[in-house]
């Protein structure tokens, strides 16, 4: 039988607020355990939550970015369960009235085709703390620094059909979140986490099969591999006439397989009910418009504009808008040099290679947009050749001096002095009598060889146009 895979993704991102969702505690990553947990975070009796409005702003921003319905009245609910890293014994979340309702995002697949994937909802909730099961000889340690951090849980519709689509969806989500600046969304640090729901159904069926959920997968690559692995497992079971158990499974990246996380999957009854310590959050159109006014240009719009305004290919525009910072970098260089093509080549070529080699973000680039602009300007005004520019660029990576200083100190300035060039040309003519004869006999292409010889002699600094002209004059 032919099977169709159906995937739904639940993505948690930690909102980059200054303090927790319901308390004034800081939320810095990597602090000493329990140093960012105040009397509310440890759930002392009598303490009460106070909602952090910054989280609402960020959630609304996200909602607007994916064209979602914005909940004008969002209600917090208590989700009850016992666990030591959940100090109150309930998690505050939004069940029936989330801040962000139905929206969608469009992803571009490897073959260039586009797909629009529905987002069911995105709701605000608080994070739990962390249980540490090692180093406590038979006991567990609890770190509540993370407890109460604001999360946005973004739930996709079950309408992702391949692992590649899942990854494309995640990458797009990641890009949008970074553009919006609402989270640093670093999967390795847990500020973006992904739960993957997978089910199979006979091709053509419109009934969903029984799904399994894989929780907290922490890289795009593992999401892809986990789906492949889980799809194979389910296929084997179904084709053997078995049935899938609805359960939570863990993906083990080392063994590339999934395994059941809980032996007895009890259907948890979370006994949700509206959180009586918080009033519903009511917002109006004015509020929404205020937030909309703070939205940056989003990746799709930017890509379209780059194609349009700078004449870039879809592909180049896609690469250059993959992060907001790169897009800004490119746009600055393109505008100031007036040569978008050259700017695009430098940014997506040499600069990207340099950053990749040193594992740097573009914001930490040793070569800022201003210096790359200067470098390109020196090519255009013929101070250096395009080839020498590569040498200058390499030097710039380790040397923070200005482009002109580097060209000067390394003596890389193009030689345009006709006296010097004449000397070069004379040397080349004297040293290559055979080729000179060939040229005189009408073999035009020999000129390239002779120019090359002159350039080599000048260590690349001679102006190739001038050399060419003078050679021709002298060989007449």
């Amino acid at each position, binding site marked *: 039988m032919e099977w169709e895979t159906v995937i739904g993704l639940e993505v948690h991102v930690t909102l980059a607020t200054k303090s927790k969702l319901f308390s004034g505690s800081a939320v810095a990553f990597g602090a000493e355990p329990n140093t960012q947990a105040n*009397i509310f975070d*440890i*759930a*002392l*009796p*009598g*303490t*009460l*939550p*106070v*909602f952090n409005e910054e989280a609402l702003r960020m959630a609304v921003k996200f909602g607007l970015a994916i064209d979602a319905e914005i909940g004008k009245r969002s209600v917090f609910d*208590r989700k*009850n369960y*016992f666990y*030591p890293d959940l*100090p*109150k*014994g*309930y998690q505050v979340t939004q069940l029936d009235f989330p801040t962000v309702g139905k929206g969608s995002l469009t992803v571009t697949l490897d073959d260039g085709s586009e797909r629009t994937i529905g987002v069911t909802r995105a709701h605000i909730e608080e994070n739990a703390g962390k249980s540490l099961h090692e180093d406590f000889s038979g006991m*567990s340690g*609890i770190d509540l620094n993370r407890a109460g951090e604001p999360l946005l849980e973004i739930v996709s519709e079950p309408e992702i059909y391949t692992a590649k689509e899942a990854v494309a969806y995640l990458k797009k989500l990641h890009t949008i979140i970074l553009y919006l600046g609402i989270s640093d969304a670093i999967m390795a640090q847990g500020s973006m986490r992904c739960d993957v729901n997978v089910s199979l159904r006979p091709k053509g069926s419109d009934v969903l099969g029984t799904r399994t959920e894989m929780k907290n997968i922490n890289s795009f690559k593992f999401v892809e591999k986990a789906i492949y692995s889980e799809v194979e497992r389910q296929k084997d079971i179904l084709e053997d006439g078995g049935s899938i158990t609805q359960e939570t499974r863990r993906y083990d990246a080392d063994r590339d397989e999934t395994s059941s996380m809980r032996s007895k999957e009890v259907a948890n*009854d979370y*006994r*949700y*009910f509206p959180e*009586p*310590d*918080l*009033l519903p959050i009511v917002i109006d159109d004015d509020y929404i418009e205020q937030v909309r006014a703070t939205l940056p240009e989003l990746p799709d719009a930017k890509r379209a504009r780059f194609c349009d305004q700078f004449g870039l290919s879809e592909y180049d525009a896609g690469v250059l808008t993959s992060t907001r910072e790169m897009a800004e970098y490119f746009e600055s260089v393109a505008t100031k040099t007036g040569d978008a093509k050259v700017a695009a080549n430098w940014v997506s070529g040499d600069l990207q290679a340099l950053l990749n080699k040193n594992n740097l973000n573009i914001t930490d680039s040793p070569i800022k947009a201003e210096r790359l602009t200067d470098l390109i300007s020196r090519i255009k005004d013929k101070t250096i050749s395009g080839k020498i520019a590569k040498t200058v660029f390499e030097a710039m990576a380790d040397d923070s001096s200005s482009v002109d200083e580097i060209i000067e100190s390394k003596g890389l300035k193009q030689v345009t002095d006709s006296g010097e060039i004449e000397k070069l040309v004379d040397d080349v003519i004297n040293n290559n009598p055979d080729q000179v004869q060939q040229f005189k006999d009408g073999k035009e292409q020999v000129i390239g060889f002779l120019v090359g010889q002159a350039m080599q002699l000048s260590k690349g600094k001679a102006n190739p146009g001038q050399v060419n002209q003078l050679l021709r004059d002298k060989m007449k």
Partner: protein
Amino acid sequence: MIEKTVAELSAAMTSGDISSVELTQSYLDRIHKANDSLNAFITVCDDTALEQARVADKSRAQGNQNPLLGIPLAHKDIFCTTGIKTTCGSKMLHNFISPYNATVVDKFNQAGVVTLGKTNMDEFAMGSSNETSFFGPVRNPWDLEKVPGGSSGGSAAAVAADLCAMATGTDTGGSIRQPAAFCGVTGFKPSYGRVSRWGMIAFASSLDQAGPICKSAEDAALMMNVMAGIDLKDSTSADREVEDYTATLSDSVKGLRIGIPKQHFTEGLSADVEKSIREALREYEAAGAILKEINLPNSHLSVPAYYVVAPAEASANLSRFDGVRYGHRCDNPLDLEDMYKRSRSEGFGDEVKRRILIGTYALSAGFYDAYYRKAQKIRRLIKNDFDEAFKEVDVIAGPTSPHTAFGIGAKTDPVTMYLEDIYTIAVNLAGLPGISIPAGFSNDLPIGLHIVGPDFGESKVLNAAHQFQLFTDWHKAKPAAKGGI
């Protein structure tokens, strides 16, 4: 002196008749004499109280004129207090010392009051007789074999027997007003949101409200002037201007329209209580008020709705008592589940467990619509009844409780106990202000008159109560010291 009202004591201190240190010492002496038989206090703070009194006397000498300066007060043991245990009447917190103060506590401290100690209460405020306390039942000063009411029974008994000049209480379904009625004192529950809940250990968050228990409506107004106000730490506290609650106390009741809910004068109400309440209403009428029968058609639904909503919220509010970070933890837990189970089984008493179970059940998948959602709908119906009534009347009056204080151990069936709050619960469900003031006796046991106002009608309620206390003396009656306290 210790039998006087706050207003009188304040005047006596201002005129130099007595110092706060002398007054405090008198109350401490009284506590040490009477608490063995009453069990009204869980913790007494002799040293810090006297120190606060010294500071108050000094401050008064320097010109501080705060009316509550140096007045000795007791806090219900549900309010978090730094340096003093906060037990909530439970084994779970029998040794808990809070690192922070409740907003109510901070506000009284800033007013310069003297904290004598913390009063006994039903465990986690769950009870109507003060018999569920881990620290033993409180006894009614009017008859030591009778209950003082609950859950703020310790505060009401302490005020009635002059163990303090005033006390704080909390009221989720009647926990200030019913013990005030049983002990013959004044107890006021403000509108929901009028007093901050920060630092008040939660029972049912959407119903809990702190208020004064004291010797007169005037004292209640003085205390409310300190307690009321928005608190940014409590998102449900009301962003409304705080009135000076003493400003309108002396307004006449002439023309005051008093609604008499016919549902509060039906079977179940004892004849003696009905007689006293009817007489009290005639006093109002004599003073020029207009009595008008009103209809609260859904009031019979209030107890069932309450016993869904309150336990549901409580079941979640009490989850934090898990033995992990503070509070009682069982010895030698085998594993996490064992620690949870035994810590909570050992730490909570029967009534608390019963309500956690009821609440957990009511919120369970498949039952939510039948119980919690339906109870919330009833809550709106009840609120609508009041809204309709207040279109025609200024306040609503009736009995606080269907009868006077009952015997310790007399009510063993939980449902019978739950019906204790039949007249008070609707007021919590609707979030309204309500007061109980003494209005007579039956067999030497006090009877309470219940006066309810519209949303944030605190001033109106206090004014009506104060006027009654001007033309009656019931609030001045003192326990006949049965049993020799």
